[in-house]
């Protein structure tokens, strides 16, 4: 069973010391597991520690206690088993889309031809082959975020980590990107953990939703929201489960306990 685990978050706590020297308990004893090929959403009110938790999994932040394992290996800083997608894409403005996608591959010292080929595959996966030679300022917000996703996929990571990947996009583009993410997931089978403020997005995309509550940030409940594979977004949205789960998640996020926790089976 344990080699089925992609990400194992074990009793992670994080205490920041703010400017005035006070301790901020951003996370306390957070534990959850993510299975291979699963999509998990982290959600909860502002300040509940979603970003902090994701940054710990990324290796950008060290937990005060506890540990995170990805593919069985304890996380210590960066690693090629995790591909990261940033909220605002964060592309290098002086590089073309393709060169941006190559960035993660360069750091690993791959030969140029191999790098190029891998980047071209990733660019194609997000449907941007026609814009591969444009600079970020010549791309729309949605296209930029697709380049960001391609950059993360290019290193062929086990897990894709995304902090509010679509929150900076307009509603229409966001919806399209959500559909594309599901398609990418179907094609690549990557494990995906994403942070979202958006209840609908969490329910629609994720197989399970981990909700956190603040002060100190801790897991409040885990809701099972899996739709059958290859159910389209529209089908999901129109289903009765969607309305039900949405309702449950709203209750969870707003702090009311619901009885069944850790893997509610509908």
């Amino acid at each position, binding site marked *: 069973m344990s080699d089925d685990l992609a990400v194992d978050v074990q009793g992670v706590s994080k205490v920041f010391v703010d400017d005035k020297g006070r301790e901020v308990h951003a996370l306390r004893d957070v534990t959850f597991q993510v299975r291979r090929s699963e999509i998990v959403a982290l959600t909860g009110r502002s300040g509940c520690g979603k970003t902090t938790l994701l940054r710990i999994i990324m290796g950008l932040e060290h937990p005060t206690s506890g540990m995170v394992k990805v593919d069985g290996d304890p996380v210590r800083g960066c690693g090629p088993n995790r591909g990261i997608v*940033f909220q605002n894409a964060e592309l*290098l*403005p002086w590089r073309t889309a393709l060169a941006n996608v190559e960035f993660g591959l360069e750091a690993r010292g791959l030969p140029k031809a191999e790098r190029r080929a891998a980047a071209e595959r990733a660019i194609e996966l997000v449907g941007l082959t026609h814009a591969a030679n444009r600079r970020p300022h010549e791309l729309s917000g949605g*296209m930029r975020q697709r380049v960001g996703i391609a950059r993360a996929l290019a290193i062929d990571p086990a897990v894709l980590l995304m902090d509010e990947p679509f929150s900076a996009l307009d509603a229409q583009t966001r919806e399209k990107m959500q559909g594309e993410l599901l398609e990418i997931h179907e094609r690549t089978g990557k494990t995906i953990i994403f942070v979202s403020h958006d209840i609908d997005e969490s329910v629609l995309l994720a197989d399970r939703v981990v909700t956190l509550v603040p002060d100190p940030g801790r897991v409040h409940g885990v809701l099972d929201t899996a739709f059958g594979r290859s159910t389209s977004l529209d089908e999901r949205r129109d289903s009765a489960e969607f309305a039900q789960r949405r309702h449950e998640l709203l209750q969870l996020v707003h702090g009311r306990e619901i009885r069944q926790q850790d893997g509610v089976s509908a």
Partner: protein
Amino acid sequence: MTALAEQAAPTDDETALSRKIRSQRRSGRDRLVTAAGVVVLLAIWEIAARQVDPILAAPPSAVLRALISMIADGTLLTAVWESAQPFLTGYVLAIVAGVPLGLLIGRFRVVEAAIGWLVIAGYAMPMIALTPVFMLWFGLGFAVKAAMVMTMTVFAIAINTWNGVQHVPRTLIEVGTVFCASQPRILTQIVIPSVIPSIMTGLRIGIGKAVVGIVIAEFFTAIGGVGGVIVDAGHSFQPDRMFAAVVVLMAAAVALTGLIGLIERRLAPWNRSIAGGSR
């Protein structure tokens, strides 16, 4: 999904294109307004200058005649050449010293603590005050002019570079970290490209400072150069020649600033499109 993406692409192209057309139309109108402004100013100057004693002021027509005669007899070319040499020497020295200085101060806390204050003081202080001392140190020739240009310019370049390093987006550095890029790779692939626009800003501001530097040096030493021509013309009551030299200085400063802008657009074409312009 590819089909979806391609459907979206034409709209993206369309908005980019219409944006471009709009900005071109705007710049065409702007140019017309600028030209009109110049004409009006010249006309006012012409009319006003004709009312006063020719010893005190010269109308544009007289300035133009003086300019032509100064070009014809070679005084202008000699003067420009005499100014250009120390100008370029001082300016290049300022770049060579100022950019690494700014990078070091911006990148390392210790260096900032050690000499950051000096750069701020140097930038804030009117360097003109040092001219007499510089004349003692460097004499009255080429060296003092170059030194003046360099001290006027170096702090502007250093402070802008420093500022640029401080404003490298933290998230871009995190992109490097998260994709396991080494420190040298982060420096060359992320920090330095990010700082280029700030360096160019320093160079652009530096041009203005350098022009002040060369003119002051030439005023004080009164030996040669365009500054020398201005002083001589002033002393001999020839306002037309004086204004002609001033116009040359102005044109040179504008041309050099434009050149820097051109280089900037070549080096950092992404920067202009990110920063919004005025309407």
